[in-house]
């Protein structure tokens, strides 16, 4: 049921103080963007805002702890700091230019490729109802709720790449790389897939919550950066310094992922509930599967394996969350752990690149499997308009493969160029001595753990 209220009532839009006295003027300013839908739905709005907070939680502290626990003790603060600063930097990038470039109206032939600057600094948005819906046309949430929900996706995506170059990245280079990557890689791809002007969106690609935009994109960028920056220096790989951190981080990721996936319904409705349930199911299945693989091949079920598997399952269900049923979720969870396990345990050590924390092995590979699985397993039982290969629509699978290929190719080329440019100017890698001493003390002049008080 909708509560019909005038959209000029500022009280329903947190963070935006609209004094009723000025609402007439405000209405005039917003009228172009909001003529069609002057009502706000309270239930949907509260759900989307809650989910925005849940997705924020996925970057810090969830991903920070997940990654932070896996590195050596002398580098843990550098990983936490990188995640934390990304939240700050990308939040600003998003409200100034990022959102406009990703979701804003584009100009002429460029409309399908990149949004323009019409919504820079969130101008012309105000308290209007969001005109862009990924899967629901009746959500009636404030445009600003959509902006902040999407902001958290823009934050976590570059944060995922941290896993590839952890323990040897120079902080200044990392910052410049991240900002450039947000502008040149994330914003265009988000526009292609999610904006109603985007060329992949118009082609009919299905990406419910960001398998292509977030996981394949960041995963490929991780592979590229891991290759260019080179291996870490120690003779032997050292064990994770704090697995409890990693377990807490993985659990918080699982928790936040409900916002990521169920929130992508952009409404507090049956589709959100369905996405919630399949998300949980895929994570559970994938966690069990990885632990079982460890048990079979390494003789013991490991905590790190179960946690890694669960995260891989969450990655893989992301594009499919609004399109598959429980059976689909179980299949996705089962296969993602098998595929990622093979990649991380068998292929990576032979391939000669050092993806420190398996950002590509989990997010890239899991994301690609998820995108393909969406094309295979989408069932009209969840959303009647969308069918995959096994439900009789062969075309969807080809669209999914095309979107996967295009995203991967674009991310590969542009990430490579950005990395090389930053490396040539301010440098991307610390010196051998700094790497040996650890990034905490050399990049930040701090230590995580003291020996003597």
């Amino acid at each position, binding site marked *: 049921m909708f509560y019909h209220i005038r959209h000029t009532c500022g009280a329903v839009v947190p963070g935006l103080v609209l004094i009723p006295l000025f609402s007439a003027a405000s209405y005039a300013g917003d009228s172009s963007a909001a003529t069609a839908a002057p009502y706000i739905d309270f239930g949907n709005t509260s759900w989307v805002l809650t989910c925005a907070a849940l997705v924020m939680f996925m970057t810090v502290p969830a991903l920070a702890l997940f990654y932070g626990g896996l590195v050596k003790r002398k580098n843990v603060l550098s990983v936490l700091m990188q995640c934390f600063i990304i939240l700050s930097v990308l939040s600003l990038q998003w409200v100034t230019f990022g959102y406009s470039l990703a979701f804003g109206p584009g100009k002429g032939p460029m409309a399908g490729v990149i949004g323009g600057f019409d919504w820079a600094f969130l101008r012309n948005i105000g308290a209007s109802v969001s005109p862009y819906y990924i899967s629901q046309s009746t959500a009636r949430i404030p445009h600003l709720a959509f902006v902040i929900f999407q902001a958290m996706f823009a934050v976590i995506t570059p944060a995922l790449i941290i896993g590839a170059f952890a323990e040897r990245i120079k902080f200044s280079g990392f910052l410049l790389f991240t900002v450039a990557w947000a502008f040149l890689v994330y914003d265009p791809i988000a526009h292609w897939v999610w904006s109603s002007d985007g060329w992949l969106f118009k082609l009919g690609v299905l990406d419910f919550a960001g398998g292509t935009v977030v996981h394949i994109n960041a995963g490929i960028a991780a592979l590229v950066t891991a290759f260019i920056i080179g291996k870490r220096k120690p003779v032997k790989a050292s064990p994770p310094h704090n697995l409890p951190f990693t377990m807490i981080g993985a659990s918080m990721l699982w928790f936040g992922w409900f916002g990521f996936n169920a929130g992508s319904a952009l409404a507090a409705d049956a589709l959100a509930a369905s996405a919630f349930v399949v998300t949980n199911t895929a994570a559970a299945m994938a966690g069990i599967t990885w632990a079982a693989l460890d048990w079979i091949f390494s003789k013991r079920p490991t905590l790190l394996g179960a946690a890694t598997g669960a995260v891989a399952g969450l990655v893989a269900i992301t594009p499919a969350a609004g399109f598959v049923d429980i059976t689909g979720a179980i299949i996705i969870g089962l296969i993602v752990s098998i595929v990622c396990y093979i990649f991380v345990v068998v292929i990576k050590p032979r391939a000669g690149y050092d993806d420190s924390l398996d950002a590509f092995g989990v997010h890239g590979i899991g994301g690609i499997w998820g995108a393909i699985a969406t094309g295979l397993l989408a069932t009209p039982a969840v959303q009647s308009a969308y069918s995959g290969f096994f439900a009789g629509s062969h075309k969807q699978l080809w669209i999914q493969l095309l979107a996967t290929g295009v995203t991967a190719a674009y991310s590969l080329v542009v990430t490579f160029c950005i990395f090389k440019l930053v490396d040539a100017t301010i440098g991307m890698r610390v010196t051998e001595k700094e790497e040996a*001493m650890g990034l905490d003390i050399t990049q930040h002049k*701090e230590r995580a753990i003291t020996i003597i008080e």
Partner: protein
Amino acid sequence: MKLIIAIIQPHRLEEVKEALYKEEVNLMTISEVLGHGRQKGVSEVYRGTEEGGDLLRKIRLEIAVNDTFVAPTINAILKGGRTGDVGDGKIFVVDLEQCYRIRTGEQGGEAIG
């Protein structure tokens, strides 16, 4: 019998261990310590306040050896631990009066190996 105590850079531990294994020196005790020699440590900054700056993390190895193993052990540590920079550490060689293996009660050279 000698007790060899070496203070080395933490990041050279793997190389030192590899070098020792090559000389068939497999028994050692390792602990984490703080210290500094002539070089200054790296200062830390907490909310704008500089602190510390005198102590650096080091690894201490303690290896008890029979006389024939003294030279190979020292050479292995020199080889594995050297980066050429200030702060590579020191090796101390001390006479070892007696050694017992707790499990069997063996003494002296037999207990060391």
